[in-house]
């Protein structure tokens, strides 16, 4: 008698939900709601890691999943919530409007995912990346990474850019599950602590920028460009 839930199908479902949560995080204009979407996105990330642990019979991935959950779904959102009160509730209007951005994201991410998935042999010709669900997971990870870069380029609000960097790092973190599943927990904690401290410092800096300039618009931070 097999497991009640097929881990392989569960991972595919979680990845789809993870991508949707990432898009929601990227495009939600209310910063508190975007942070809640980020919690959801990080929780699915932790869940994917845990299910990989079941699928591959690698119990050390459970600890990895737990640390990802604590740092990305608890500590980082807590930092965001603690600082968001200092800024306007809604982010500044991005360079591209909402509807156009959603359409662009969907098309871009689908094309990017398909391209990476098809050419995975050239990008990461390793045994783990060659078979499913590792191949799809890695393609998804790079897609989320690309989404994070998109957020940093298109959005003007400094707090949203911080969220974009967190998305970037989540994508990189997810890629480690396929590329480097046997990383020691100390190394994983080191990577997680980086983004926690970076988020904290960026939010402090964002607060000082808002206090000094009266705006969170990073386009105004161009006085030195010459």
């Amino acid at each position: 008698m097999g497991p009640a839930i097929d881990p392989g199908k569960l991972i595919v479902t979680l990845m789809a939900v993870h991508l949707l949560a990432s898009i929601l995080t990227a495009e939600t204009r209310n910063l508190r709601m975007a942070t809640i979407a980020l919690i959801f996105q990080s929780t699915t990330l932790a869940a994917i890691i845990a299910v990989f642990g079941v699928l591959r019979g690698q119990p050390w991935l459970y600890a990895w999943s737990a640390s990802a959950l604590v740092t990305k779904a608890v500590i980082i959102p807590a930092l965001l919530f603690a600082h968001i009160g200092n800024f306007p509730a809604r982010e500044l209007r991005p360079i591209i409007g909402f509807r156009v951005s959603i359409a662009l994201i969907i098309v871009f991410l689908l094309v990017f995912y398909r391209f990476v998935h098809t050419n995975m042999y050239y990008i990461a010709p390793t045994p783990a990346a060659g078979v499913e669900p590792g191949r799809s997971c890695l393609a998804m990870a790079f897609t989320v990474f690309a989404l994070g870069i998109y957020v940093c380029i298109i959005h003007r609000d400094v707090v949203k850019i911080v969220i974009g960097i967190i998305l970037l790092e989540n994508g990189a973190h997810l890629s480690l599950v396929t590329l480097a599943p046997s990383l020691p927990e100390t190394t994983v904690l080191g990577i997680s602590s980086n983004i926690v401290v970076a988020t904290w410092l960026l939010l402090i800096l964002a607060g000082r920028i808002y206090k000094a300039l009266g705006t969170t618009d990073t386009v105004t931070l161009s006085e030195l460009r010459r």
Partner: protein
Amino acid sequence: MQNVIQTKESLLPLLVFLVPTAMGVITLLIGRIRREFHFEWALLGLLGTLAVSVEITRQIITQNCVLTAWNENFYVDGLSALMEILGCGMGVIIVLYSFRYIPHRLRGDPALPSKLSLYYGLLLLFLGMMNWTCATNNIVMLYVSLEFTTLATAFLVVFYGSRQSLEAGYKYLVLVTIGVLFGLVGLCLIYSAASGLPQMAGRRILLITELGSAAKLMPSSVVLLACALLVAGFGTKAGLVPFHAWLPDAHAEAPAPISALLSGVVIKVGAYALARTVAIFAATYPAVPVFMAVMCSATMLIGIVMAWAQDDVKRLLAFHSVSQMGYIAEGMGMGTYLGIYAGLFHLLNHTLFKGLLFLAIGAVIHATGGLRRMSQMSGLGAKIPVVALCFFTGALAMGGMPPFNGFFSKFTLFLAVTQRHLFWAAVISIATSLLTLACMAHVAYKIFWGPLRVEGPTPAEEVKEVPRTMQAAMLILAILTLAVGVIPRLTYPLLDNATRCIMKIVAG
């Protein structure tokens, strides 16, 4: 050249990063309780760390060994020792310089004591993180520690709290954090490719020292992609074109001693990471040296062209740093003994003369009440002769004029590049060097020659020489700049050891 290097277990690789980190935390905490003890704690911490790094260097050179700790997760060889001694040495000089400089710049600020403890605490934390980067043998912890060096220095860039410094700090933190994440992906690709090799079964592929064996066996598509990501990632930290956008702003808006730290030490951490990773593949894949030569030549040219366009001297020196990093990375990218030696030699020399230049321009800022544009001053040589002498020393060294140190490292690089038959790259390097000399001669002339003129808060007649501690800091660097040029063999034991360490890893 001796090729047999022994491995020796020691506590020193741990101490060299634990001491400054602990002292940094203590300085930050002490500042909240006793507001007057920050400078003393910083100096104590730095002198202690310098003593450890000198002892490490002594053991490595005299015993021809590498020091390891924690089951080879910490690995200190000649290259690590070079970086650590440079970082700690510059740290001591910067603390000496800052003793009078920072309080003078922040005079009248009621928050001065807490700002000073933040300043010295972050400085020590940065050195701790840098020494961790140089001591770690774990390929992923290399990324972690390198990113922590960025985080430790971000609020040093923002130290003055002005609009411009906030902009500079924001760009620094965002661009370098994003850039270095690309490096993480590159490192993971390498790790993944190495773990899939049957020949590497049972080996500890997380260790940088094991990478050389795997380098020759990896598929070339992965190597090239990983190298591109690593260059993008660590190249952002090192200020290579086109990832250099943060560098001119951060260097210009940070306090002058921090600019000396950024140019002299912080960006070298990026170069160190490139030496530990990309250089390993340069010997095996001919495309890598060509790729590095193209990128570094562009870096040299764009840096020098942008420098010529500047009136702000700190910004000008920052663009020169971009240009000079092109030399360092190009040498390391050649993958030969001569190339790597040239890159490391120029790394050492650049730390000395660029640190000197930034401290000298900081002294000009100090003496003139805040001026840093060439168009606002002239004829200062008679009023601040020690500063002028130091600036000229740094300028001639950077321009590659003998008998200063810059000449020898650049000449070594020209030889290394021609040895690889990249004659076009050698021509660009020489041309850039000549332009650098012309630019710096122009700057020195404008500031220190001609009729006395100061268009700032301090009247021209009241411009006077800077405090002795600042002079001492500059003169130490000036003497070292001249000494290494007159007796280049002074640095040979350490540089040779460092180069052989990289070649050993390359050989696998």
